[in-house]
């Protein structure tokens, strides 16, 4: 067998918006707008620089629902660069960009193969005029594919390295929609040597030995839960060593979230120093990339009341944004959540025979479901059932309601006890 290398990527989500951000500055917004494209460019550069034999993209290249022409054109331009460098590209579409989704009439370069959705197609790749691998793949003809597509794959030529290219939910990936569901055993039974999978945004190697089953993850994190490096796998296949996988980050902006406890912080200066150190740490951790972060302050400490002063957190955020935008690459602080509590013994206060005790007891009753939480939802219905609001927001679920109850407990204590008493 010829030795060959390829790159396995997935879930580019070109030109799809970032979620969970409130109000980034213009410089940050500009970087965000370009981020998915820049990540794709980095992917193409990697292929050219490392002179790989082909590129595999396992679905969700863009979001059809966004109807972004720019995403498709940029994608075509990137593949054209690979074509010009003599590198082949193999693409399947996933649930976000199914074949029946909106797409413009673009002309794809010669070395690009986009798999159809009717059946699994096979394609033999040559190196130096000799076949080295066989690639099989199938696109989503429509969005809601709930059938096990892996069953349609089979080993066609025993002498060639077999690669399966598929967008699916293998195993039980909670947090991801169950499109084209299959099990690890389903995949292993097909005789495919390397499964290049897409759909799950966090990279995973489900099977580290042949047959390899690999999720490349997305090339660019798009919200605060998609932290850490994002990129693709560079796979080198040889007779002696089988497939050697190397993860290469291609993302252009990193997400980070940190939790800071306030117990040991006795002054505003100490808090600011701690926050600045955290931001500096995030910057160091980002491997030379700009970052977006969210910080959460928690615990009980003397600064609790200061943090809940009107406008204080907003001022700190503004100050830290300036601090984060100073160095290059920048760190953009999106928000600071305060989940802190006053320095009081809640259980003791709850037992007290006064209105504070009554209030804490009432909250506990809601938590223990001895009082019906639906009554709380009734209070919220003015907003959440409002004609204009309900198309954008949903009535909080139980866990969100508990979170609100925690925040309300803190607020009640602040209001009832004031700063001096707690």
């Amino acid at each position: 067998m010829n030795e060959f290398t390829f790159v396995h990527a997935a879930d580019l989500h070109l030109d799809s918006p970032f979620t969970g951000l409130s109000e980034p500055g213009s410089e940050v917004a500009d970087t965000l707008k370009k981020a998915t494209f820049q990540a794709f460019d980095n992917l193409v550069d990697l292929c050219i620089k490392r002179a790989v034999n082909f590129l595999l993209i396992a679905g969700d290249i863009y979001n059809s629902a966004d109807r972004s022409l720019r995403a498709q054109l940029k994608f075509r331009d990137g593949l054209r660069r690979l074509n010009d460098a003599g590198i082949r590209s193999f693409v399947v579409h996933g649930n976000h960009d199914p074949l029946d989704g909106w797409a413009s009439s673009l002309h794809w370069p010669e070395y690009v193969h986009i798999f159809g959705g009717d059946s699994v197609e096979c394609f033999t790749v040559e190196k130096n005029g000799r076949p080295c691998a066989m690639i099989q793949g199938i696109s989503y003809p429509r969005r809601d594919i709930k059938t096990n597509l892996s069953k349609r794959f089979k080993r066609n030529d025993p002498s060639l390295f077999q690669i399966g290219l598929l967008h699916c939910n293998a195993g039980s990936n909670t947090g991801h929609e169950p499109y084209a569901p299959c099990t690890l055993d389903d995949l292993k039974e097909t005789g495919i040597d390397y499964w290049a999978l897409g759909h799950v945004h966090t990279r995973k190697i489900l099977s580290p030995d042949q047959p390899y089953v690999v999720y490349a993850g997305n090339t660019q994190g798009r919200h605060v839960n998609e932290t850490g490096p994002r990129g693709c796998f560079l796979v080198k296949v040889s007779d002696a060593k089988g497939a050697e996988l190397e993860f290469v980050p291609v993302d252009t902006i990193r997400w980070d979230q940190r939790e800071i406890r306030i117990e040991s912080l006795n002054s505003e200066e100490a808090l600011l120093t701690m926050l600045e150190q955290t931001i500096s740490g995030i910057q160091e951790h980002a491997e030379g990339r700009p970052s977006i972060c969210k910080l959460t302050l928690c615990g009980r400490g003397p600064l609790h009341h200061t943090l809940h002063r009107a406008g204080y957190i907003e001022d700190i955020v503004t100050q830290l944004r300036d601090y984060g935008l100073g160095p290059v690459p920048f760190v953009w602080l999106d928000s600071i959540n305060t989940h802190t509590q006053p320095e009081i013994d809640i259980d003791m206060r709850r037992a007290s025979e006064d209105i504070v005790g009554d209030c804490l007891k009432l909250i506990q009753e809601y938590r223990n479901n001895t009082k019906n939480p639906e009554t709380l939802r009734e209070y919220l219905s003015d907003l959440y059932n409002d004609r204009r609001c309900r198309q954008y927001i949903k009535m909080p679920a139980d866990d969100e309601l508990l979170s609100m109850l925690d925040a309300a407990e803190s607020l009640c204590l602040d209001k009832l006890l004031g700063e001096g008493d707690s």
Partner: protein
Amino acid sequence: MRLEKIYIDGFGIFHDLTIDKINHGLSVFHGDNEAGKTTFLAFLRAVLFGFPDGRSNENSYPPQRGGRHGGQIVIIRQSGDRYVIERRPGPHGGSVTLSLPDGSIGDEEVLRQLLGFATRDIFRNIFAFSLSELQRVDSLVDNEAVKATIYSAGMGTGSQSLPEIYKDLDNVLGQIFKPRGSKQEINSILRQLDEVRRDLRNLSGNINRYDELHKALYYADVRIAELEKGQDHIRHQYEKSKQLLNAWDDWIALCSAEEEFSSIPKIDSFPADGIARLDRLEEKQANINNQLNRLDKEHRATRKEYDTVFVDERLLKHANEIHRLQRGRDQYDSIVRDLPLRRQELKHIEEELKEGLHELGPEWNRKRLQTFDTSIPEREVIREHRQAVQESETKVKEANNILDLAAEAVRRAAQKEEDAKKALTEVDDPSERDADAIGNRQQRLRGLVSLLTKEARLRDRLSHLKERIEDLKAEKDRAEKRISVSDRSKSLTLWPLVVIPLTGIGIGALLFALGSPASGITLILITCVGLTGYLLFQRQWNHRLADECQANKSDLNIVDGQLSNISNQQRELEKEYNDLRGYLQTCCSELQLTDIPDEAGVAALIKDTDNMLEIHRRWSTATANRKEAFKNLQGAMEDQKKAEETANRSRNSLSGVLSRWKEWLDRVGLSKTITPDGALEMLVQIKECREQLKAVEDISDRITFIKDKITAYRREVAALASACGKMISDKDDAGAVLDDLADKLAEAEEDKRRSRTLCHTLTEHEKRIKGYQAEKEQIVKDLELLLQNSGTVDTEGFRRQAVYWKRREELKYKIKQYNLGLERIAGRDEHLALFKEELRKARREEIERKKREGEEELLQIGSELKKEFNGRGSLSEQLRQLEAGDNSAGLRMKEQFLLTKLHNAAKKWGNYTITKALLSGAGKRYEQERQPGVIRDAGRFFALITEGQYPQILAPPGEATLHVIDRNENRKEMEELSRGTLEQLYFSVRLGLIREFSTRQEPLPVIMDDIFVNFDPKRAEAALTALLDLAGTHQVMLFTCHPETCNLIRKVSPSTTFFQLRNGFI
């Protein structure tokens, strides 16, 4: 606490009024309007809490009937302690005098403490209030202490009340969202989201045009290609015409140049730049001739000057010696000037040395000066002796001082001992030397005073009860009389029933008989009617009498009951009184008193014990003083003895030190009269003399050295002058001679330099003349060669030949340039040949016509192409915009940002809404379950007064208001209650507050001024019952002007004490 006795000196209409025998429970003060009830209430407030100050609206009630403004109140606390408070007007509420139970005087602070730190406001609003205070809610809720007691006790909240918290929360919520608002955070986000989505919808429609635009672009490209093809052909023709026209002028000039070139004689070669070269050679030749002439003149003049220069070689030979001596010249001059100064200095120092030796003494000379030992060890020996002498002298001096002080101390101690002895003889000897025994007697006498006070109080109460019994007996007699009168009145008077009808009938019959039957019948009828009327009146009268009799019997029963109660009380008091008298008798016996003294007698006895204690104190003090003085005298004498011994030891030590010093002086050969300080001074003088001796020797050596130097220098100068051919004598100044030699040397050196320069110039001139001559020969050779190269023999022929050559070269150049110009237009070789052929055949007019036509066609096609390019550009721009898609991406990003902001804002709204709901729920729970004790007590009173109509009072948490719950559990606010009910509510709350305060402090007396006027009889009675309940624990004084209120009180509490106020008297 209760008010026992009140004395009003002067206050409003009151003057010199004493009120005592005020009950512990309820006392009623009845009086008509202006009888002085309100004045009396104001007096109590003023004495207890101070007179109102000038800024207050309150009346200060200045005395109208004389007396000093103010008065006195005697109060008794629960502990039985008795205090007298007297207050007179003045700054800060007036001056107060508080007599404490132990007879001492307390100030305002002690009074405040006594009154449980209640303020004037609290007393006025809670404990001593009138109808006007009762009717005002602000008198309750505006007082922070009262408010805190009613509304905040047990709430546990911080600085904010619940309504304030609700307001804060509502403010925040109102800023986040309002269902019909537009500026609120969420409303604003929703509006922006709607706009973004609308823009996105619009954009999605545009993107469908992308393929159509692609097609349109393709067709535009095809049309442009066709037009460009036609344009190329026409442009080719046009360019050809343009080429011919451009080349036309050059072509004509080329033909002309070629014709002239062929007419000039042919010359094969000519030196390049021949004429210029000829001109340059001729010019050079002339220049060199000029230079040679000038140089020859200069050479001859220089030679003449060289011959006249003379150089003195002898001076030059000794130049080094002259320069060396000149360098030493300054030193020579310096030492010559220095010699007399040194001699003067030597003389001066020798005189100083002589004087120094004289000061040391006649036996001192230069030799002894150098041999005397002034070393540091020797100086240290002297210093040691000096220190030893000084220390010994100091010790002797100190010892003498101590001795003097000790003698003085002995004298003073002896004097004090004498004084103490005298003082003891002057003090009285106490009869009883045991002070504790006197103190015990005094303590028992003080106890006797309180027993006597109690005995007086019991006696007063017995007297009061006796009077009360007398009153009740009188009242009983009156009631019995009323009953007997009623009983007598009840029996029917029968005689009118017989007399009147018989009289009427008799007269009627008489009239009938006398012939006036009508009158007789009428009279009989009237008599019958009158009889009937009398019978009816009698029946009514009997009923009324029966009712009255019943009421009087009831009163009699009440009076009997009261009489029985009071008689019982009297018996108990009498027993208590007798017991107390017995105990008093025993105490007096123990104190060796035959009879029970009165309070004044006991006071005199206490005073006696005070005197005895004072005498004992003085005797004790004098005795102690004498013992102390004697002890001090003995100590002083001891000290004096010790001081004498110390002084003797110091003097012996000093004489030893001095003898050792004299031994040392003898050893070094100095006079024995010298002190250590004198010896040290001599050492300093010896050192100075030694330094002067050293200076004398140094200066003498220096003078010798200077003299030697001057002699050597003069010798050298004389030798040098002689060598240079100049003779000098001893009188000549060596310096001047040397200066002269140096000047002459400088002149000789200058002559030498000049001679060398001239010699060098002559050599140079000769070299240059040779050079010019060689150059001149070379120019002649070059001229010959130039003529030879041009094929001519003279310069004239050369110049003619040059003109021909130049013209031929110009024409050759022009022809070449024209051909190059044509080459640039048409190309080289065969293209050029073809082009020339076309030019040869062409005519200018024809070419110009073709060019004009081409221009027009090109313009037309250009216009069409421009149009097509514009259309294509527009399509490309549209495609570019669609491809760029920046706008849609930006909008989607904005949409996400807005959604995030919406979620955050909604969460915040939710947090605050839930907070408000929780606080509201907790507030309700608190309201139901945790009302403060005041409100609970007030609720019970209110239920009692309203006979269960309102079973509960609520104080909504954090609100300065009250709600009541009626028997149907409906909640009512204060505004919904009638005036009377509202006053009953306030009255109940005050009773609750009084209870609450009394749990924390001494119960203060309660004073109320006609507060039941708006109560209906039933509720008034119920309120009175509640008041009597309070009177069980508090002294209560009720002022009223309504007899019915008094009657009601008598009815409910017959034992109540009544005081009648009338025009300033009680």
